[in-house]
């Protein structure tokens, strides 16, 4: 439960409940992500890690509870909230027919951002050598890197990452950890669902199993 005072610019989730189909996945979940904060979501498969991230990204609507950003409910100005969120799901949204830089450029345009940091973003994840390739020729790990390059290409204060290190090699994981560290130093917030041990110093852990709804009480 949330008792500590929360600052104006925290990302706050209060008493969230999530239903998928007939099943109440979790209930009464509260979460505070302060500036520079990181939260690691852990829990068994199906405990609702991805659902929570989709809730935080406003891609799902909670059946109960609400989400606060900048001191007010995100539903009040959902466009502004969405503009400050990066959601990297487990699907990469990569079209095989587009080039690597083209794909990143398209994502940047979609956010209405200027394509000023494309090359820097590609270099950060070691994709500069393949920038002109079609995505069709990328390996699974490179596709993941391309999806993550979005984080650098378009600045946003809240990162929601669903298994970001899946398919990444050790070097890729190190780059990711570094990118997250830099983001948090600059006051950014990160919520990560992961099974892999990702170096996130000072991050709090949220075990989703603890919020599992009692199946008997739900119906």
């Amino acid at each position: 439960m949330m008792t500590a005072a929360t600052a104006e610019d925290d990302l706050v989730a209060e008493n969230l409940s999530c239903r998928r189909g007939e099943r109440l996945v979790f209930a009464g979940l509260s979460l505070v992500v302060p500036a520079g904060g990181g939260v690691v979501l852990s829990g068994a498969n199906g405990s609702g890690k991805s659902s929570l991230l989709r809730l935080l990204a406003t891609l799902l609507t909670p059946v109960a509870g609400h989400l606060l950003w900048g001191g007010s409910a995100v539903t009040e100005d959902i466009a502004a909230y969405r503009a400050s969120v990066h959601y990297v799901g487990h699907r990469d949204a990569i079209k095989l027919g587009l080039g690597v830089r083209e794909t990143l450029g398209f994502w940047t345009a979609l956010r209405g951002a200027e394509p000023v940091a494309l090359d820097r973003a590609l270099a950060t994840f070691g994709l500069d050598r393949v920038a002109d390739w079609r995505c069709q020729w990328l390996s699974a790990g490179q596709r993941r890197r391309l999806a993550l390059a979005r984080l650098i290409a378009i600045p946003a204060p809240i990162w929601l990452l669903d298994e970001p290190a899946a398919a990444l090699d050790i070097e890729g994981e190190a780059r990711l950890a570094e990118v997250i560290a830099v983001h948090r130093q600059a006051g950014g917030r990160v919520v990560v669902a992961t099974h892999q041990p990702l170096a996130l110093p000072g991050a709090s852990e949220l075990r989703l199993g603890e919020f599992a709804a009692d199946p008997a009480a739900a119906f």
Partner: protein
Amino acid sequence: MTAYFGLFRRDILLSWRQGGEIGLALGFFVLAVVLFPLGVGPEAEILRRIGAGIIWVAALLASVLSLDRIFAADHADGGLDLMVLSAMPLEGAVLVKCAAHWVTTGLPLVVLSPFLALLLDLDPAAIPTLVLGLLLGTPALSLLGMIVAALTLGARRPGVLSSLLVLPLYLPVLIFGSGAVEASLVGGARPHLLLLGALSLAALPLTPFAAAAALRQALE
């Protein structure tokens, strides 16, 4: 504005690069029309009478065939999530995607139609009306089809289901479209063409809301 333009450009680019998709719908259109002379016999008299109807029906079917393309790939690879979180409202995004669909499906059908009309020995005087009718009517096909494409996302056999759902919606377009060609030979196709234009114009502001609502449902 960058978001709208970027999405439009990407959809056109993808259709162009994965040329098979445009080619599939157009190839189907041409083949379906060409089959009729073989099926009903080569009498020019009969073909001339039913030619406009054949072309319109084939255009409808070719359009249905291409509907899957509008949202299915973006739904499967998570691209729709990014569109929801983008700088534009989802209604705007679906309208842009629909426009790209029309440019890569409807417009090529319009361009091909006069050649097929010649093949069926249509009265040359009726060909401009046929082309104009298709030009006015195909946007309505893309717009109505977009709703069904969004509704059938996640269905097990989206292709079959969407054709069952969308063809009844296409009926007014078919009736006024082929009616216009008939009417042009006896004097005035104007009312038919105006009604076709009206169908497209009425669909333009209404269908994006329905399609966006269906997409939100599919993403839940």
